[in-house]
C-alpha cells in the first residue's frame, strides 16, 4: 500500500535477498484449498507489502480476541515491486500462497482483466451486500469481466501538497494553507511561487523534490491516463498526459527541482536536510514523511489543497487467492479489516485514507499536530470526494515508470525533452512488447 509503494527502491536492495527466498519457498508443495477447517483452531496467513499497519494498530489482536481459536500470521515484503514479482511467481506455480494477499491499485487491473480465475470470487461468500459501503470507483476497479468481486478496498490516495512552513518563511512566501491554496490554484501558479522561492531560498534548498513526483501527482488528477475506457493504449496522444509532461519539463528547466530520485536513499536523506520545500503528497505519504523527517520535522510541515484540483495516487486491496487454505475465514477477516471502524482507526494511526464511505464521515474532523495541526480529515476528505474515477490499465505501473525515468533524464542529465519523450516511448514498447 501506501507507504510501501513509497519504499519501492529503498528496499529492492534487501528485498532481492528476500525474493530469492520467496522464490525457493514458492517451489514448495502446492496445497490446493485443502481444508476449510470447521470450528476449532485456524491460522489465517496474511501476506502484505510495505506497512499496512494492521499489527501496529492492534487490529489483529482485537480480531483474535473477537474470534477465539483464530490466529493471524502476517508476512510482509517492504517493497511492492518485489512483492508483486513474488506473488506472480507463486500464482503461476499455484503454491505457497497466503490466505489473504494484498494488491496495489496499480496492479488491480491486471488481476481483474488477466487473472480473475486465480482469485476467489468474493460474491460466493456474500460480498455483494458490501458494495454500498465502499467508494464506487474503488469497488468497480476490483470487479472482473463477469462481475466477480476479486478484492475489498483498503485505502485510497487522495492528493494534497505538503510544504515546509519554515523554509517558506525564510524565502518570504506566505505560510498560511488557505492563502497558498488560492495562490497555487493552478499549476502555473505553483511554478510561479517556485520561481519566487528559488530567488530567495536558503542555499541547497529546491522548490520540490523531483519532477517525477510532480508528474505522478498531476497524472493522478486525470480520469484517463494510459488507457481509455475501452482498454486501448492512449498515453502517447493523451493531451492531459502531455500537459503533465510539459509542466514537469518546465519545472526541470527552471531549476525548481532538487533532482532527487523518488524513493532512493538520497531522497530519504533529503527530508532531514531540507533539500526541498514542497512535496506532492497523497494521504499515505504523511506516514512516510513522519518516518523520514522524524521528530525534528514536527511542526515544520503543513498541508494545503493540491494545485489544479483534486486527484488520487495509489491505494490497495485485500484479496483471497483461489489456492488459499482458509477461504471462508480469510473472507471474514478482510471484511472486518476493511470495515469503516477499522479503516478510520488506520487513518488516524497511519494516514491511510479510507475507501469505505462510512469511515470518511468518522474522520472528517481529524487534524494532525505533526503537520502544524492541518485539518487532514477535511483536506483529504474533500480531495477523495472530488477526485476523478480513474481508468486503470494492465501496464499502468510500468508505463508510469518509463515516463518518470525519461523525466529524470531531462532533469538530471539535461536531455532534450523530445529525445526523452522518444526514450520513454521506446521504453514503453519494450515493457509491453
Amino acid at each position, binding site marked *: 500500500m501506501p507507504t510501501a509503494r513509497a519504499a*519501492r*527502491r*529503498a*528496499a*529492492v*536492495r*534487501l528485498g*532481492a*535477498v528476500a525474493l530469492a527466498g520467496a522464490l525457493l519457498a514458492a517451489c514448495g508443495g502446492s496445497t490446493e484449498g485443502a481444508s476449510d477447517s470447521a470450528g476449532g483452531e485456524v491460522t489465517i496467513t496474511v501476506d502484505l507489502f510495505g506497512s499496512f499497519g494492521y499489527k501496529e494498530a492492534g487490529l489483529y489482536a482485537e480480531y483474535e480476541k473477537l474470534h477465539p481459536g483464530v490466529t493471524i500470521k502476517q508476512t510482509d515484503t517492504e*517493497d511492492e*515491486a518485489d512483492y508483486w*514479482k513474488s506473488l*506472480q*511467481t507463486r*500464482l*503461476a506455480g499455484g503454491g505457497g500462497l497466503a490466505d489473504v494477499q494484498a494488491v496495489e491499485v496499480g496492479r488491480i487491473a*491486471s488481476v481483474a482483466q*488477466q*487473472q480473475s480465475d486465480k482469485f476467489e470470487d468474493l460474491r460466493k461468500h456474500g460480498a455483494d451486500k458490501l458494495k454500498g459501503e465502499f467508494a464506487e470507483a474503488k469497488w468497480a476497479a476490483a470487479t472482473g469481466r463477469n462481475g466477480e468481486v476479486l478484492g475489498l478496498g483498503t485505502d485510497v490516495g487522495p492528493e494534497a501538497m505538503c510544504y515546509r512552513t519554515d523554509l517558506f518563511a525564510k524565502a518570504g512566501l506566505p505560510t498560511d494553507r488557505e492563502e497558498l491554496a488560492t495562490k497555487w490554484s493552478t499549476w502555473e501558479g505553483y511554478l510561479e511561487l517556485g520561481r519566487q522561492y528559488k530567488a530567495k531560498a536558503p542555499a541547497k534548498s529546491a522548490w520540490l523534490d523531483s519532477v517525477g513526483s510532480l508528474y505522478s501527482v498531476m497524472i493522478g488528477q486525470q480520469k484517463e491516463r494510459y488507457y481509455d475506457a475501452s482498454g486501448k493504449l492512449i498515453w502517447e496522444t493523451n493531451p492531459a498526459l502531455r500537459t503533465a509532461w510539459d509542466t514537469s519539463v518546465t519545472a526541470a528547466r527552471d531549476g525548481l527541482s532538487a533532482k*532527487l*530520485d523518488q*524513493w*532512493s*536513499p*538520497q531522497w530519504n*536523506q*533529503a527530508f532531514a*536536510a531540507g*533539500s526541498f520545500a514542497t512535496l506532492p503528497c497523497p494521504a499515505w505519504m504523511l506516514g512516510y514523511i513522519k518516518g523520514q523527517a522524524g521528530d525534528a520535522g514536527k511542526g515544520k510541515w503543513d498541508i494545503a489543497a493540491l494545485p489544479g484540483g483534486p486527484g488520487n495516487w495509489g491505494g490497495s486491496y485485500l484479496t483471497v487467492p483461489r489456492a488459499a487454505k482458509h477461504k471462508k475465514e480469510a473472507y471474514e477477516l478482510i471484511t472486518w479489516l476493511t470495515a469503516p471502524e477499522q479503516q478510520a482507526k488506520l487513518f488516524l494511526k497511519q494516514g491511510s485514507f479510507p475507501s469505505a464511505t462510512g469511515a470518511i464521515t468518522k474522520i472528517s474532523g481529524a487534524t494532525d499536530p505533526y503537520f502544524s495541526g492541518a485539518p487532514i480529515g477535511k483536506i483529504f476528505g474533500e480531495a477523495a470526494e472530488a477526485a476523478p474515477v480513474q481508468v486503470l490499465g494492465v501496464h499502468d505501473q*510500468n508505463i508510469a*515508470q518509463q515516463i518518470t*525515468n*525519461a523525466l*529524470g*533524464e531531462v532533469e*538530471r*542529465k539535461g*536531455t532534450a525533452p523530445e529525445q526523452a519523450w522518444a*526514450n520513454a516511448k*521506446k*521504453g514503453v514498447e*519494450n*515493457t*509491453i*512488447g
Partner: protein
Amino acid sequence: MTLTAPTRPLAPSRPPAARRAWQKLSPYAYIAPFFTLFAAFGLFPLLYTAFVSLYRVELQTPGDMEWRGLGNYAALLGDTFFWTSLRNTFTIGVLSTVPQLVMALGLAHLLNYKLRGRTFFRTAMLLPYATSVAAATLVFAQLFGRDFGLVNYVLGLVGIGPVDWQTGTTASQIAVSSIVIWRWTGYNALIYLAGMQSIPHELYEAAEMDGASRWRQFFHVTLPGLRPTIVFTVVVSTIGATQLFGEPLLFEGSVSGGISHQYQTLGLYLYEQGWGFFHLGRAAAIAWVMFLLILLVVGVNAAIAGRRSRKEAGR
C-alpha cells in the same frame, strides 16, 4: 615389463566377473550423484530455457504459450536496450576486471616478501570477498551519493564539483565497477600469491646473481611463472563480468540499471524482461545468448592461451 604387471590378489572375495564389472562401473556410480543433480538443476533448466525461448510466454498467463520460433532472438537483434546492456556488460567488465587483476598482481607481489604480520594482511585482503554483495553494494551506494556521499565530499575538498554517480554513464559504470574491484581484488591476489609461491626460489636467486633488479625479476621470472594462474583468473573474472547482476541491481535498486539503462548489464536486462515485465520467453532468449557469449569468450580465451603456451613449448 614384468615390473609393471599388476599383482594378483591372493584370495578374491567375489567372483572375478562381478568384480571386473564393478571395477568398470564403480567410477560411474561414484560420479552419479553429481550428474543426477546436474541433470536436474543444470541440464534440465538449460534445455527447458531453450524450449521456452522459442515461445511467447508471460509469467501471469504461463498456460498460453504462443510459438514464435526464433522470433525472440530476432527481436533481440533489433532491440536497442539489448545492445546497450551488451555494451555496458563489456565496458563494466573491462573497467572492473583489468584494474582488479593488475592490482591483485601488485598486492600479491608485495605480500610475497617477508613482511611482519603477513598472515594478518593476507586474511584482511580476503575480507571483502567474505562480505555479501548486497551489504557491500548498499554501503557503496551511500558512499557514491550525489548530495551526501563521502566520495563527493572528498572530491569537493580538492575542488572537483559534485559528480552524479548514478546518472552519468561513465560515472555510474565506474561506481559499479569499484564495488566489483573492492570485492574481488583480494581474492585474486591470494590466488596469485599461491601461484608465486610455487615458483622455485632458485630462479630468483639465479636472476639476482645475473644482476636483475626486483622489477626485472617480476617481469621475467614471476609473470612467466604465473601464466597458467593468470589465464585461470582471467577466465573466471570474464565469466563473472558477463554474469554481473547483484551490484548493478542493488546500486539504485532499479531493474533498468539507471534511468537511461546506463549501467544495465545483460544479467540485469534478463531480470527486467523476466521479472520486471514478466516476458519469460524473451528473458529465456537473453539467457541463451548470454550462455553462448560466455562459451565464445572463454573459447577465445582458451585458444589464445593455448597458442601462447605452444609457442613457449616450441622455443
